């Protein structure tokens, strides 16, 4: 599956946030969208997933216009975990994950045995199987984020869109989340598109990185080619070195010391 955004202009009301954006998403790859606050990262993600209408331009999924997809058809092809989501705290984990089957059902249908099997699979793949009988408010922040990923995974999408999946998590759970993303990609071949704030994490897990600055695409490419001291200076106005450490495959970002 390939998603192509062509000449996208996206905005809220009269304000244009994203201008003439071309963006291509490959299935089976991990793509990260990075950029400073307010640069339009989340806006692009929302436009590609039809959570936000775009003013001009077009999005194609496998050559077919995004506008021609029915809501359910789209939800069977792509899964989106928005940044803002909430469930009543007393909802049970397995019940919440079960809602991921909705795109496959008529409005009056309940989950059947096949749906239950997929719900179980999604809970096992995301490591929340043990939590299935608990209610959401009994889960920690990291656990509940995994539960939400399981819910989206239950849609059996080819591409998973995650809007800042690590925000509000402590470092252990952030790394845990990245590990999970990598695992889902490697073991299940699911494509992932993420908006990320943490550049070290983007550098570490991504196959492809798109850099957005002031609503326009600044650069895209492999992490090593994109994350450079020059980009960091021009996009974030931050001084850094990219350093290689023996025994580590990927380089690290060493920010200039705070004096």
């Amino acid at each position, binding site marked *: 599956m390939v998603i192509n955004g062509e000449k996208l202009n996206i905005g809220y009301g009269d304000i244009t946030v994203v201008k003439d954006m071309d963006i291509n998403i490959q299935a089976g790859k991990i793509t990260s969208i990075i950029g400073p606050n307010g640069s339009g990262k989340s806006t692009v993600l929302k436009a590609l997933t039809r959570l936000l209408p775009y003013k001009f331009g077009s999005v194609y999924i496998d050559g077919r216009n995004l506008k021609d997809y029915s809501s359910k058809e789209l939800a069977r092809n792509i899964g989106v975990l928005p940044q803002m989501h909430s469930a009543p705290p*007393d909802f049970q984990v397995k019940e919440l994950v079960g809602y991921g089957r909705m795109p496959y059902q008529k409005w009056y249908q309940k989950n059947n045995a096949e749906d239950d099997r997929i719900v179980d699979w999604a809970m096992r793949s995301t490591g929340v199987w043990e939590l299935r009988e608990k209610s959401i408010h009994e889960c920690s922040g990291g656990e509940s984020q995994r539960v939400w990923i399981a819910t989206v995974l239950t849609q059996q999408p080819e591409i998973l869109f995650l809007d800042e999946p690590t925000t509000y998590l402590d470092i252990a759970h952030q790394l845990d989340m990245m590990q999970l993303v990598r695992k889902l990609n490697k073991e299940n071949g699911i494509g992932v598109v993420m908006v990320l704030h943490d550049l070290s994490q983007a550098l570490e897990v991504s196959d492809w990185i798109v850099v957005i600055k002031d609503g326009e695409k600044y650069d895209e490419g492999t992490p090593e080619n994109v994350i450079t001291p020059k980009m960091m200076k021009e996009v974030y106005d931050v001084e850094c070195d990219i350093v290689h450490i023996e025994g580590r495959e990927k380089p690290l970002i060493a920010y200039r010391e705070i004096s």
Partner: protein
Amino acid sequence: MDSTKKRKVSALRVGTVWLILTVLLVVLSITAINVGSAGYSIKQILSAVFSSEKSTVKVVVMNLRLPRLILALLIGASLSSSGAILQSVMRNPLADPGTIGVSAGAGTAATTILLLFPQLTGSVPLFAFGGAALACFLIYTMAWKGGVDPTRIILSGVAINSVLGAYNALLQMLHSDSLEGVLAFMNGSLSGRSWTQVHTLMIYAGIGLLLSFLCIKSANTLQLGDEMAKSLGVNVSVTRVLLSAVSAFLAAATVSVAGMIGFVGLVVPHISRILVGSDYKQMLPTSMLMGSVVLLAADTLGRTIVPGMEIPVGIVMSVVGGPFFLYLLRKRGKMIGN
């Protein structure tokens, strides 16, 4: 092991709540038939009802108390269900049928007829229903902007409610000498209702309550947030409009028969949520059952507490319900983190 235990307790809890409510419903129903300005024993009632003779007891029970009992049950269930559904539409526990203009619309229509066209007084229920539907439609039209969003519904509801409220106040000031009928309508009452109203409401409430069971899954999905619901393939705006229509239909049906009864639609779903959780599979039936219990209790109290006088059920609901709700919020609020 531990977690399976928790699940069982939760199912047990729902079962217990339903059992208690059913018992209360039966006890209250029997009480409502027995008590009144004339008190009868169960034996007296049974022998009168099943005899072919036309006794006073039989007339009072069959023509006055029984229809009133059924009305109270239907109205309580309808208002609570209406409120429960609306709270999911708005994602706000403070939403009630008044929010979407049902009360103001019905009130405006009824006031207009009673004060300006008194010759049409017999058709007040019909006009009230129409007024409620119209006000609701107006609010949603104003709120529609490429979709409906709860904040816009609530805000345009506030605006339209205030305009209608002003119109009602003005009309009442100009006709301050003939407000009896208007007051009776504004403070919803079941006094003097007969089988005619029961038959009407049975059809409307029957349809409405059936429809609300079909809303359960959608109501649950709306609780996950708009973007999440959308990404699960739900057309959020259409769902909101459909659920609101069911809710408005139920509330309008009760208003047209009994006038405006506040508080039930707001409080009963809230108490149900505290007792059985937010899943509408349990919460909605609990609300219906509890709504019937609460309204029947309020009406029975209203017609017996002061001998020789009837206090409208709407007033009893607010006076007794308010403090009870406060008590519940303080006591149980901690548990659900409110």
